[in-house]
């Protein structure tokens, strides 16, 4: 009996000691953010090669999709302004088509064509905006030009815009696309269990050994974690929050999620978290539901095919879909009151 107990304890201690050693964790300063690649299992050489391939792909996408540094996307925007058609490569065409479709589903609340408005607010800067906010007259001039993704047309690989005011800014879903591409790259390197976390937004494949991956969701009002969710298989967790990029001017905070209807930072939401398979969809939906706000988020979720969403409003009230409520575990005590709303 004694020897059996001791043997069991030795085995238990050994198993505990090996648990974290099976995760290959790498941090990359790339794509304008901090990217964390966590790979469970497999050998170190495979993990290093796969992570290196992810880094190269992210560097390339950062260059190709940048909204303000001179590159392929700014060349497209210049052609639109000049009322000229422009040849697209396959990735550009794919992103414009996906962006147009997601914008249509969101009723225009997600609009990658309002680059001029975002630039007007000063968010086209590597260092972030500093204020002051733009004058209302300038905002109204931009709104009156009504840039929409439906103004764009692709024929024989060439892009034409009916509206020269459309300026593409993929900031609302480029990170999602990049995370999807990073996961695809990992799979090409035979990695089946991993997390790619780009600046807090992530996609998960497989499992952490014998258990699902455990994801903490940051509290929008504090630096701690408000809730957690277990994910396995293939799923993305994306959050749009008013704390991500912002500036303060004369005591007021102006965040980076611009409402295409008003031209001002969206009101009413503090953060929106989406669970969905494709990161590009989760990213766009998080933006759209944030803009929709506490009164209309569920309608937008339904229109975009999202059934797992959580919105925390600017008063700290929590709203969730039933499917989301079934999975989220609050990490604060006492847990906040939650309004469960069917989409």
């Amino acid at each position, binding site marked *: 009996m004694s020897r059996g107990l001791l043997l069991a304890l030795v085995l238990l201690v050994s198993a505990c000691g090996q648990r974290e050693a099976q995760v290959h964790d790498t941090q990359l300063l790339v794509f304008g953010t*901090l990217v964390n690649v966590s790979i469970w299992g497999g050998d170190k050489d495979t993990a290093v090669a796969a992570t290196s391939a992810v880094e190269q792909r992210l560097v390339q996408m950062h260059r190709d999709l940048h909204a303000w540094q001179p590159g392929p996307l700014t060349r497209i925007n210049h052609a639109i302004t000049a009322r000229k058609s422009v040849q697209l490569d396959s990735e550009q065409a794919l992103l414009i088509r996906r962006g147009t479709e997601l914008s249509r589903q969101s009723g225009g609340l997600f609009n990658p064509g309002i680059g001029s408005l975002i630039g007007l607010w000063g968010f086209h800067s590597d260092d972030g905006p500093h204020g002051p906010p733009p004058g209302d007259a300038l905002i109204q001039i931009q709104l009156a030009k009504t840039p929409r993704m439906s103004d764009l047309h692709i024929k024989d690989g060439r892009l034409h815009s009916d509206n020269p005011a459309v300026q593409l800014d993929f900031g609302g879903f480029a990170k999602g696309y990049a995370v999807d591409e990073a996961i695809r790259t990992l799979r090409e390197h035979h990695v089946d269990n991993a997390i790619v976390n780009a600046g807090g937004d992530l996609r998960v494949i497989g499992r952490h050994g014998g258990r699902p991956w455990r994801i903490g*969701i*940051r509290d929008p009002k504090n630096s701690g974690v408000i809730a957690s969710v277990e994910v396995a298989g293939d799923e993305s967790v994306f959050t749009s929050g008013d*704390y991500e990029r912002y500036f303060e001017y004369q005591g007021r905070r102006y965040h980076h999620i611009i409402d295409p209807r008003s031209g001002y930072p969206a009101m009413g939401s503090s953060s929106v978290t989406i669970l969905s398979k494709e990161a590009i969809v989760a990213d766009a939906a998080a933006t759209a539901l944030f803009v929709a706000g506490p009164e209309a988020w569920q309608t937008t979720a339904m229109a975009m095919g999202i059934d797992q969403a959580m919105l925390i409003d600017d008063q700290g009230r929590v709203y969730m879909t039933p499917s989301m409520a079934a999975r989220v575990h609050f990490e604060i005590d006492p847990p906040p009151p939650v309004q469960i709303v069917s989409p």
Partner: protein
Amino acid sequence: MTEAAIPFRSIAGALRPTPGDIVIALLATVLLVVLYTHYWSGIGGEGERARIVSADDDVYIVSLSEDSTLTVHGPLGDSVIEIHQGRIRFTESPCQGKQCIHAGWLHTAGSFAACLPNRVSVTVLGRNRHFDSINY
């Protein structure tokens, strides 16, 4: 002696735990609770050390148990990092946005903050990672 010849009373006596068995069983129970709490339950989750990566890809591992203030050089200037009572944070940064400072105190294993313009990052390390990744 054959097996059939063992009296029933003798078998029962052999299975009765001795005082030594009881002590070991108690120790094992305590140890199991400690190990479960430490490794599996997610209770706690406080980081023990932090990894600081500078613009030159230099990596520094620092203990969170000793209060200190560190200066890390980057392309824009100096990032100042404070360690206090098991927590770590950026307190000064030459960047404009100050996102790294807005991230506040970090203490949970796996949490991180970075000053991208100055290319300095801080990650809290710990054997017990409560979460595999943080969404924000």
